[in-house]
Structures are given as C-alpha cells and as structure tokens.
C-alpha cells in the first residue's frame, strides 16, 4: 500500500544519466551517506545540499540511463527523495530503484506543467495533482508494491521468509 503524499519538486531535463546522479570518483567512498552530498554534482553541484527529505524529482525522458551502479538510486534514497516522476526510466535504474524502495512514477506530461519549487500531490496509483491540474498515473503491479512497501527487495525477502 503506497501512501498518498505531497512533495516539493526539483526539476531536471531529459537523459539524466547515472554518472550525473553519482559520478565515478565518489563511488569509492565506503558509504552512501558519504556519497550523497555529490549527487547531481556534474550538473548542479549545489542541488544535493538543497534537497530536503520528502522532496521529489520531476524529470524528462530516459532518467537513470547508463551504468548499473546501484549507488545511483541509493544516494537519492539517502537524500530522502520521496519519488521520481519522469517521462520514462532506463531499465537497469528502474529495477535498482524499486529494489531499494524508491518510488518511480512514469508520466510524460507533468514535466512541462510544473516549475521547480512547485508542490505536487500524489494519489497512489491514480493521479498526480499539480497547479490545479491532474495527471493520470498507472498503478504498479502487486509484486513491486510489496517490494516498495518493505523498503526494498532484501527487506521484502526477509518479510516473506518471516524473518522480520
């Protein structure tokens, strides 16, 4: 069960690649906590410091293209990003984000209708409301909802096995 929520948004363009999300030179840091301050640094070095827990990202198409580095969704999760709404997602990033309990929503129209700093309301599996307009969203399959609810695939496996 994904809860309804509102979020302040940060707006990014098309083709936000994994090397933008977290550049290679920071991958050697032992923890995601140490990396997260460098998220998006090639594009907007100030951004990571301005993101507050609960904020969301609204981007264009092909978000997360490139590397399979799982640190990409991990740093966004660590920054407290509540969800990413994009025109489309690259497939490896999509799996990695769900596996880390990071909600992704595909919508091609929202991007052009909002500005950075706007607040969106997400009604799970139904629509996103922004600036008085509603944008329909698809519902996620049950198995993915189970993973998101648990906070990621590893935690979902533990739930399923009755460990937690």
């Amino acid at each position, binding site marked *: 069960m994904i809860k309804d929520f509102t979020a302040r948004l940060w707006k990014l363009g098309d083709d936000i690649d994994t*090397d933008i999300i977290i*550049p*290679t030179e920071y991958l*050697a840091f032992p923890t995601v906590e140490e990396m997260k301050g460098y998220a998006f640094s090639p594009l907007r070095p100030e951004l990571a410091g301005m993101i507050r827990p609960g904020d969301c990202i609204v981007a264009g198409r092909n978000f997360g*293209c490139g590397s*399979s580095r799982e640190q990409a969704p991990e740093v966004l999760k660590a920054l407290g990003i509540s969800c990413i709404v994009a025109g489309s997602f690259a497939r490896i990033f999509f799996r990695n984000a769900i596996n880390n309990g990071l909600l992704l929503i595909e919508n091609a129209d929202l991007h052009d209708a909002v500005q950075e700093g706007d607040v969106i309301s997400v009604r799970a599996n139904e629509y996103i409301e922004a600036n008085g307009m509603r944008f329909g969203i698809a519902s996620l399959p049950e198995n993915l909802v189970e993973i998101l609810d648990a906070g990621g*695939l590893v935690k979902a496996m533990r739930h399923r096995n009755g460990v937690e």
Partner: protein
Amino acid sequence: MGMTIAEKIIAAAAGKSCVRAGDIETVTLDYMMSNDGTTHLTIDMYNKLVSPHISDKDKLIWIVDHNVPSDSVKTAASHKKMRDFARENDITLWEGRGVCHQIMMEHYVCPGQLIFGADSHTCAYGALGAFGTGVGCTDYLYAMVTGQSWLLVPPTLRFNLHGQLRDGVCARDLILSIIKMISASGASYKAMEFGGDGLASLSIADRICICNLCVEAGAKTGLMEVDDKALAYLEERGRVPKQVFAPDADASYEQVYEIDLEDIVPVVAKPHFVDNVVPASECRDVKIDEAFLGSCSNGRIEDLRAGAKVIKGRKVAPKVRFLVVPASKEVYIQAAEEGLLEIFMEAGAIVMNPNCSVCWGSCQGVIGAGETLISTGTRNFKGRAGSPDSFVYLASAPTVTASAVMGRIATADQL
C-alpha cells in the same frame, strides 16, 4: 507465431516451450558476473541476510577490472573485501587479467545462455548468441542466493545488415549510427537482434563492440545470430554451445530495420551523449588533449592492429597523451608478440595494463577541467572521464589513433 532469439533463450531458461514479449518469467541463470565496481556492496548486503548461502558458486565469476591495480586506500579496502569473500566461499576470481566482458567472452560465454552481470555492458555477450543483461547489486544478490531472477520478456527490434562496411569504417561507426537513428532511449526495455547477409563480414570483435553498445540505446540485450564464425570462435577456445537459437521466420518484431553497411561512414559521438552522433569529418577543428584506445568496446587485438596500422612510423602529437589499454592478458600478449605494443610505444603512446581505465573515469588517465578526450570507451556523459567540465568524444580505433597523431579529431585517411 514464432519466437525471436531473446524469447527462445528466456523460454529455455524458464523451462517453457514458448514465451511472448511482455510476459514476466522466472528464469534460471547460467552465469552471474560481478566486478569491483559494486561487488563490495553486494557482499555487505549478503552479510546482512539471515543465514545466507550461495546457490551455485560455480556460476559466479568475479572480476577485478575497474580499478586495477588499486589506486587508493579506499579501493584497496573494497578489493580486499572482494578477494577475501571469494576465497572464503570458493568463488572464481580474476584479477588484473582483463576487462570483465572480455574475460567472459574469452572463457565463459556460450550461445543460448542467460547471463546476469552487475555491469551495464553485459549485453555484449549477445555477440556469441547469449542473452546477457546488466543488473544492480540487489538483483545480483538475489540471483546469487537463489540462482534465479525474474525478467520481463522484451520486445525485439530486428536489424538486417546487408553488404559490408567500407575500408576505414568500423563496427563502432555502425553501432553509433544505429544509436543515433533510434536515439539513446530507442531500445529501452527491448532486445536488439542482428542478422542478415551482412553479418558474415563482421568479426567476433566487431560483434562484441556492437552488442556491447546496445545498452547505450537503452536495450536490455543485444543478440547476434550464431553462424560458423561464432562457432569457430568457441571451438578455438574449447567450448560448445548450450543451444543455438535462430529466430523463427514468423517471429514477431516490434520493428525491422534494413541497414546497408556500405552507407555507414566514420562518425563520432559528441559530448555529452552517446546519440549525439555526427560524421567525423564535421569535427576536424576539435583539438584533443588525450586519446584512449581500449575498453570492453574496442580493446581487442583487432582494434590494436587497426590503431598500430595508423600510427606505425608516425608520432603522437606534442602535448597529447595517448593511452593504449589491451582488454585482456590474452590481447596484451598477442599484441606484444605481433610487435604492436612496440609500435605504440615508439610513437609515444602510454601502454597500460588491462583494465577499464579512463572509460569509466577512475583509476588512470582522468582528464581535467577544459580538457578533451577522444575515446573508444563506452560513454561520453558529462564528467564521465574526469572533470565535469571536460569533454569526451567517442570514435573507432582508427579515428582515435589518427586523432592522437594529428592532435585534433581526424580520420585515418587524412594522415
């Protein structure tokens, strides 16, 4: 209704007679490859599981290639974690002997297999008719523990290749031209399948380069039809196919493209995206600071021969660094035996040990603010090779080498 190669491999891995694009299937994997980019994270997660076990250690291949030899104390620590875990759990570990995908091609990949790699360029394995796809470390962990995973059966884009490439035009030019045509997300979630009468003219090295870069169009995998050339490559290395799957004549494709190989010209992908492709002739005024010949895309013996042919008797331009990085120990020794390494070094190139090098912007050769690199690497994203304020152009081995000689972007026929 028939099946594509991707559908046939997934059906076999799922124990079914037939699957269709859009189905979600639970599949059993043949190999699971992981490298030092993320294996330390997988180990951390594994150690947090309650009484974990490895499903089949013989299917795990671990390769230290991204930062080898280690370049910092932090890297040394993550390598040690990988090495220790591999030893304790009797997992095959390769270190310093090549780029992961090249080692997989030389020693493991067989037609019909389904292989996960914790690296996006795992799609290269389709050069030998195997379904390789990149995953993150959580998916890798799940596969490592269960031996299985789930896959959405991808729709397939079919590319019929006709004729042959002109002299001086390479597989790299072909796949960059295809990526430009369909865009960097044009094959998202899809398989790219290659066949046609033009396939026979492409070497295995060419095919690896093409399949390797399919992920730069968003593809889940790239797959070549298996022919005598592929079977001969396997036989030379003492391997036999798991199963050779040809697509059915009535297979269902999302789209079919007819590509005349003679139409392809030398191209470069300009900063900062892989589909920003133009004829190399349009970039002749771009000065370079560094050139890189290597990587899982173009670090094979054929690429080194092509580069050596261009640079023999010439010199690297003043103030330009030219890094030559054979993709594996096998390639390195072969290049040494053929005298290629001597040609490069006499010309002023720096010949490095087999590793991922500047292609992934770590370890060696990273470039500074304002600098420009021309590379046979996989990506030219902003900051990919070092400073966020640097510039990366992607091109074929001969174009990269000719550029190293000229100090600006050039094709071999301009020398």
